[in-house]
């Protein structure tokens, strides 16, 4: 298989953004942190942006907690490492405060619809992750590499879709219709929409109630006059993702569902010409290759069991056979992925006996990620 060369990617100063993505529970956050440590030790000035509130991981980086501001991680050189965790409401508030005068931002921040939108809209987290990425990726920012751990979405694809969805939602025609009275009832769009408007507001007020509709109207009017189109902002972040300085790393576990999701994501990235660096196959079973096959090992264990002697050896052989079988199954799944995506470079990272607790653990993962001679 084509091996993913992590050190080449991390050392290349043209690489400015790395986005780790994949299904939930495959070790995305740990991978992002390990890449951060590795890159900083290769001399890059790195900021890791995580979405997942994994306290243990923050502790592994020597931070008691992560907040919405990059915090320096000590003990990493010659480059530097900072880490932060996205607070989506805080980030949204900052966007509002940065774009509106104090009076108007107060008006927006206190609007019930804004409060609900900024803390629980299905796409807000993804959108704000993009917003934060844009902020961190300024020309004058102290980082030359930003590593993003994508939100634990319902589907990994949400990350690509949500910014545009929130953008088109806020810029969309229905919100225009809804706020038409606030914009002057005689507008062209108001007249065109008049036909559908009655039935539409009727349904919406049935579902939501009139108060909600009025909150939305006020919110959109306030936000619209303060800072331009949300859709434009979403488009800009989307373009940032397509730039050659960005690299997507899809993380998967060697399991059917995780690899199926990885396949979907790889196909989506390819179809949108997004810069895909490769696949990290996380937590694979390693077995020292010996001359004996799994069948021979299993048969030998059975013979020992039958003899009633050497129980310890029998157990150890069974354990060995179990691992060989697991590795075989994982390799079979990986081979199927490769067959479907022959051009995608892959790197396998062995399963660790224990969870990651400290920088050394992250270093160890980083070394495995960079070990392109791993012949798993």
């Amino acid at each position, binding site marked *: 298989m084509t091996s993913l060369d992590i050190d080449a990617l991390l050392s290349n100063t043209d690489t400015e953004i790395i986005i780790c993505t994949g299904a939930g529970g495959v070790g995305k956050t740990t991978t992002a942190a390990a890449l951060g440590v590795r890159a900083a030790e290769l001399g890059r000035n790195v900021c890791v942006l995580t979405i997942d509130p994994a306290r243990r991981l923050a502790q592994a980086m020597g931070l008691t907690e992560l907040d919405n501001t990059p915090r320096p991680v000590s003990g990493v050189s010659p480059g530097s490492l900072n880490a932060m965790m996205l607070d989506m409401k805080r980030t949204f508030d900052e966007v509002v405060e940065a774009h509106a005068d104090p009076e108007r931002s107060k008006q927006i921040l206190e609007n019930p619809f804004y409060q609900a939108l900024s803390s629980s809209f299905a796409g807000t987290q993804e959108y704000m992750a993009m917003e934060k990425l844009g902020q961190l990726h300024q020309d004058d920012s102290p980082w030359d590499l930003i590593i993003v751990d994508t939100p634990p979405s319902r589907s990994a694809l949400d990350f690509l879709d949500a910014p545009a969805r929130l953008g088109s*939602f806020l810029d969309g025609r*229905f919100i225009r219709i809804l706020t038409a009275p606030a914009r002057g009832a005689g507008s062209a769009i108001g007249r065109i929409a008049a036909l559908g408007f009655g*039935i539409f507001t009727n349904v919406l007020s049935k*579902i939501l*109630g009139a*108060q909600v509709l009025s909150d939305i109207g006020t919110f959109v009017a306030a936000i619209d006059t303060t800072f331009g189109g949300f859709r434009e902002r979403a488009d800009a972040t989307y373009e940032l993702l397509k730039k050659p300085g960005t690299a997507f790393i899809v993380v998967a576990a060697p399991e059917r569902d995780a690899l199926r999701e990885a396949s979907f994501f790889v196909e989506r990235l390819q179809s949108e010409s997004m810069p895909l660096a490769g696949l990290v196959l996380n937590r694979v079973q390693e077995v020292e290759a010996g001359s004996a096959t799994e069948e021979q090992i299993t048969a030998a264990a059975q013979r020992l069991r039958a003899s009633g002697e050497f129980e310890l*050896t029998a157990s150890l*052989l069974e354990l060995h056979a179990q691992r060989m079988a697991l590795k075989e199954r994982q390799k079979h799944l990986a081979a199927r992925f490769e067959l479907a995506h022959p051009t995608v470079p892959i790197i396998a990272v062995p399963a660790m006996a224990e969870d990651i607790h400290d920088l050394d653990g992250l270093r160890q993962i980083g070394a495995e990620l960079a070990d392109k001679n791993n012949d798993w």
Partner: protein
Amino acid sequence: MHSNQDSPSEVVLHVVSGKGGTGKTTVAAALAISLATNGHRVLLMEVEGRQGIAQLFDVAPLAYEETKVAVAPGGGEVWALAVDSEDALLDYLEMFYKMRRAGSALGKMGAIEFATTIAPGLRDVLLTGKAIEVVKRKEKNAANAYDFVVLDAPPTGRITRFLNVNSEVSGLAKVGPIKSHADSVMSVIASPLTTVHLVTLLEEMPVQETLDGIADLEANGLPVGSIFVNLMRPPKLDANQRKAVAEHSLSTSDIERGLEAVGLNSPELIASLEREALDHTQRVDLEARELQRLEDAQRTIVRLPLIPAGIDLGALYELAEIITNSEVTK
């Protein structure tokens, strides 16, 4: 057959959550088969549009229509439904306002998508609302349409918010139709009719998330059920052997003689076996520590084994039998 009277517990709605990668959908499916055992009718619902149920039961992707996917031992039936918030909204409009036609006209205009995104929480209320509708649904003879409903719910990190529809909606609508709908949904979810099970693995992060999830659910007055520990592997080495491994006092010559007896003796294999023994011992110790943390939470724990050949329909029945023999469905 369509009654809960033979079941001492009142629970009708079993919500199954868990961290991503723990096998939440598999456990939900096995639980559905187990609940259907001995002549019950069970509906297994998914709400995240992943078509995980169809894949598990090896059937065509589920439409928004209750479909029979399996039979259970003793004549029960498992039906399945993939709920989509748009369809659930049309149902809601029809049920309360007889407005399905107007609703679907708006759907063509993209307005439904708009409405379900406009109100954070509306989507969740519609999805949980559909589950409650099924729970309450009666046949013509006044028996329950389903004896049990199993909901394959969003992951642990989002479960409290997903179920706590009242507080989601009340931020937005203090009064009005959606608020009263949320109230009626909540009156079932926060009642003895409902229980929330969490699926975990014996690893640090999933266990921590499970414990946090339990605390979160309890703090919000939501009923916590059992903990399903999935993918458990029995230790290959007994306690004495693991102790010897940990103390590096395993007898190499003993292993050597064993390998000699089967013609496999080689220093490389011995080195591999010893390394694996250490790895295994560390893993077993870690699992024991994590299991203890779960036991401290004082919940029923259901232990589900790793099925070495992977999950297929047969494996689901195997897991279902284990659940049937546990305390969960008793």
